[in-house]
């Protein structure tokens, strides 16, 4: 492996959130510290210009992973390496250059914009904070950014409440791009939008990627969206990666039983003659185990149709089953 280092590399990332259920528990320091295993040993890399889709159901840790990559929250353990530099322990001041290069687009375009700022001021903010430009140059850049995300110049003086959901998300994207990032974490960036608007924003994100050479960590629960934008897909279940593969391969030949069940449960537009919901063998029974008291073995074992004795003994590691296609399941090792 002498290839140049990837844009982003995440090694064995762990995030545990302490649970403070009972205030009295704090009086007994010896009491067992209970934690939510939100992210529990996740490793992946993203190349420049590449989109990695991170998919999973609520509570699987995908959003926490995105926030860890941004260092919006601090990891419990593990390393985050960006452009060959370990940024895990950099101070806020040392992080500034990194902050320019890694930006986020949020899910909810209604709560992620400041209601008291005009679009122009919001988009100008990162340019001023990072001292990318000054004076008239700032305004010129704001104009170019608005144009890039498909907002006409008259939107510069509008407030968020005057915009639709799609327009707000365009502002959110312009703001993320203002600092000139190389990696954008898109956290459910199109989930709150209506179908026709969602298509507009997805097309915009893909166009921007091609134009600016952006890399995305695209976090979503929607496999259709993930399939559309991603080069590679990582499937997450209860804080761990179950499977990582190139997009085409993952959808054609999912290996992990969880990925298979997930794909089988998607109501894709069908022929209207048969329904996937009439076939009980496609249904995954049960629900996610509690992320506080995790089973000793494979986290998916309790719902898995292929459960074996060893699945309950120890957790399977993520291993390559084919070149570039890794899976954490004893069926393949």
């Amino acid at each position, binding site marked *: 492996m002498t290839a140049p280092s990837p844009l982003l590399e995440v090694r064995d990332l762990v995030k545990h959130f302490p649970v403070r259920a009972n205030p009295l528990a704090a009086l007994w320091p010896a009491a067992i510290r209970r934690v939510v295993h939100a992210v529990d040993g996740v490793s992946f890399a993203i190349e420049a210009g590449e989109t990695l889709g991170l998919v999973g159901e609520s509570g699987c840790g995908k959003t926490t992973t995105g926030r860890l990559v941004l260092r919006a929250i601090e990891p419990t353990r593990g390393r985050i390496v960006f452009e060959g530099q370990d940024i895990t322990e950099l101070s806020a001041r040392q992080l500034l250059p990194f902050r320019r290069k890694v930006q986020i687009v949020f899910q909810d375009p209604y709560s992620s914009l400041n209601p008291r700022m005009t679009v122009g001021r919001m988009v100008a903010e990162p340019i001023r904070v990072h001292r990318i430009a000054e004076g008239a140059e700032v305004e010129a850049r704001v104009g170019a950014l608005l144009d890039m995300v498909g907002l006409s110049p008259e939107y510069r003086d509008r407030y968020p409440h005057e915009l639709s959901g799609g327009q707000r998300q365009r502002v959110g994207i312009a703001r993320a791009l203002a600092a000139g990032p190389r990696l954008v974490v898109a956290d459910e960036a199109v989930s709150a939008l209506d179908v026709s608007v969602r298509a*507009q924003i997805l097309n915009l994100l893909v166009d921007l990627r091609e134009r600016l050479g952006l890399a995305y960590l695209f976090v979503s*629960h929607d496999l259709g969206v993930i399939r559309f934008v991603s080069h590679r897909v990582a499937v997450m279940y209860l804080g761990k990666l179950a499977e990582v593969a190139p997009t085409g391969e993952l959808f054609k030949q999912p290996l992990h039983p969880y990925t298979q069940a997930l794909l*089988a449960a998607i*109501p894709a537009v*069908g022929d209207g003659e048969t329904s996937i919901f009439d076939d*009980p063998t496609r*249904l995954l029974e049960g629900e996610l185990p509690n992320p506080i008291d995790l089973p000793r073995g494979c986290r998916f074992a309790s719902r898995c149709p292929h459960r074996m004795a060893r699945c309950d003994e120890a957790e399977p590691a993520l291993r390559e089953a084919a070149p570039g296609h890794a899976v954490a399941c004893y069926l393949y090792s």
Partner: protein
Amino acid sequence: MANFFEPVGGPGGGAAAGAPPQIVLEVKGLTVEFSSEDGPLRAVDEVSFHIRRGEIVGLVGESGAGKSLTSEAIMGLIRRPPGRIAGEVWFGGRDLLSLDEPELARIRGKDIAMIFQNPSASLNPVFRVGDQMLEAMALHLPEPKATLRERVVENLVRVGISSPRARARDYPHQFSGGMAQRVMIGMGVSCVPSLLIADEPTTALDVTIQAQVLALIRRLARELGVAVLLVSHDLGIISQMCHRVLVMYAGRVVEEASVATIFRAPAHPYTRGLIECLPRLDGNGRLGAIAGMMPGLRALPSGCRFHPRCPIAEPRCGEETPALRPLATGRAVACHLAGVS
């Protein structure tokens, strides 16, 4: 979920074979208006359709299309005033719009069941789940408490909840979203309704849990012959769940067809656009997109309400309102240009 529902009212409740099953709900010219400073705002405009026994009819559209208001108007959940409702809603030989609140209350929860988007908000947090289910049944069924208590347990089993006796004593916060939605369905079907109105029933749920809940609704239709009105913004769900679909845009039905037809050969440009917007699992490349967005009720365009966004609009589309006209049996479209080559 190994146990099956007992068929009620004879075998073959589904929408298959033989003479068409009886019509359970017939909506004619349903119109919902709200008064405002700028005059009346028409949110639902002349919507007509019917649902047969065992049939699942989908109401699909984007936010603001009027699909939820349509279902709320049918259930009598819109307060009048400020709302004004016109048209007819025939159910069980009566026009629901002509009934007063006590009469409606006798029908709702007994003959018509409803489930909504947020199951946890539909349950009262301070009462045990079993007691809430019991209360719903006691309102409509004159049976002793002990019998009803057994029926609560049976219903929990029906909707696939394990250890039902223990779960009946739990409070709503002890249920996950998927479990709570099953409780709502269990409560809804406890009196064996002939109509189930489900408004975005799985929008708050994860995909594997969504599949469990939707499979349950399919079984209700197939095995109990329940007629279902399914409101959803998700074309995939509509295609997998429904027999027939109505596509709504800005308060109007723009197309009606069987599921098999509408996804194979959509006739209205809006339907076509919606389908092209979907990132499909079996394809790639650029998504089709509909430019612009749905108009607000205060600024509805003249003529066809879709014409400002329509890729094939002609001058007359901005002048004349296209009527919903039949194209073939069970198929109708509101477009001047559909079927014209």
